[in-house]
């Protein structure tokens, strides 16, 4: 009887875990920042969330004709890394109440990395706030979910 109770306890706690995962995993998918210049796919690795560039409106550098690279990175060794596939959202954890934090966002336009908090305002809209030190010193961008046309 004890074994049955133990298994039931595991089952219920695991079920709660699934519900938690399902809620936090709503972040997964492909999203478009407000400037429409890129599309970012958010994935999960372990219990953290990451977002990488999967599409660029202007994929090639007009000067070289070659695919754009992370030429503004402060680390010179990273300046030849292609932007397509670049992971610019990193290390987000689900905080609850439709918020993911503890992560960073990288801006390839200036090579800077900012602290970032993600708030899901509805199932298809994210408020992505990059900030310096405190949230008040930041900028919010609104990202929209993309999907294949039904």
């Amino acid at each position, binding site marked *: 009887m004890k*074994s*049955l109770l133990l*298994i*039931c306890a595991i*089952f219920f706690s*695991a*079920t709660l875990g*699934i519900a938690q*995962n*399902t809620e936090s*995993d709503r972040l*997964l998918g*492909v999203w*478009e920042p*407000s*400037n*429409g*210049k890129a*599309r970012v*796919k958010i*994935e*999960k*690795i*372990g*219990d953290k969330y990451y977002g990488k560039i*999967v*599409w660029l409106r*202007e994929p090639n550098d*007009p000067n070289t004709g070659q695919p754009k690279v*992370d030429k*503004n990175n402060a680390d010179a060794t*990273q300046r030849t*890394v292609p932007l*397509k*596939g670049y992971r610019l959202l*990193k290390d987000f954890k689900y905080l609850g109440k439709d918020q993911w934090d503890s992560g960073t966002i990288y*801006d390839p*336009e*200036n*090579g*800077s990395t*900012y602290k970032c908090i993600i708030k899901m305002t*509805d*199932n*298809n*809209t994210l408020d992505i706030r*990059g*900030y*310096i030190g405190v949230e008040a*010193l*930041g*900028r*919010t961008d*609104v990202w*929209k*979910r*993309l*999907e*294949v*046309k039904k």
Partner: protein
Amino acid sequence: MEEIGSEKITAGGMMVSSVIFFPRLKPWAIGLKPWAPEQKPYLFGSAFILMLFLSSVSMAQTDTTITEEEDFSMYENLYFADAGAKRFCTPKVFDLSPAKLISFGYDHQGAFGIDYDTLGAVSSGHGHFNSASGLRLGANIPVISKTNIVWQLGVNYVRTSFDGRGTTAINVLDSTLRNNGLTTAGLNTTIFKPLGEENFIIAQGAADLSGDYHFDNFTPLKYMRYSAAIIFGKKKSDRKMIGFGLSRTYRAGDLNYIPVILLNWTAPSRKWGVEMLAPARVHIRKTLSARNILLFGYELEGNSYRVLRGEATNPLGYELRRSELRFRAVWETSMYQFIWMSLQAGYRYGYSFNMDSFAPSDKEFFRGFLGDQPFAQENEFKGTWYAQLSVNLVSP
């Protein structure tokens, strides 16, 4: 860039365990012995519950995105999940010099002179100054920063202390410049409202209290001067935004209503660009790198200062219409991450240093470029070199 290596990426970590491990599930794998007739039957039921649980995990973790990682072409034909979603243009173009959230600066002008006109019974004369310098502080904090509206509030403080040559003041204006200097403290706000993917409106407003006051001898708030601008524009690409509008401004010293032209443009090479809000400022930009920018151009600075309040001849005081045209080179560079230094140097041309008397009505009036209302005192503000250094926290 972080390399994940061989780590499996899925829409949910649980999917890995359900898909890969479920077919191999054996009772002993979870601490149970293989089922045998002598075992109690509830163990079979327990294993069934676990199987049900694991399969439910598999169903719950379906990845709605495309799982082929390297075939980026599959992300081309995607559409907003929310059919009503709109795209809006942003206030930035490529490589624009960074917006300053917080700024601490110091401005220094070299030696110059002022030719004073007569002011009532006060005789004319020539004032000499070794320098004019002072702190420049500013903060611009985004209150709302959304796709469909950006609203920013700011404060600014500009102090100019005049270091007079010799010990004797020429006249009352010369005296108050030497003793009190000029101070401006103000509030400002900017709203960027995109109307769609291309069109936008920029609205700006500012309230400045300028005068020969100190904080222990404050100028009454009724002498606050208000500036505003509205611009209708079009962002044609990530390299070009243009706009036209109208402004109410004191940049030329006295009150003016003038048209404004906005142009932010970046060349295809991304090495050169233009940052222009004419006639207030026009700069050609040379981008050395994302963290190193040179600007060449000018800025028109000006304000109307309430000075000499309480003077026996005119207790209301006068409005000093100060305007400077600063031709300059500016170097902006990132010192450490978001902390940038701005160093500028150039020639300060004195456009206006005239005074108006509002007595007896004490009301502001519009003269414009064509008005013939006489100044109470027409002064000639001689040019000189200047330099300015500021440390800034820049916006993301």
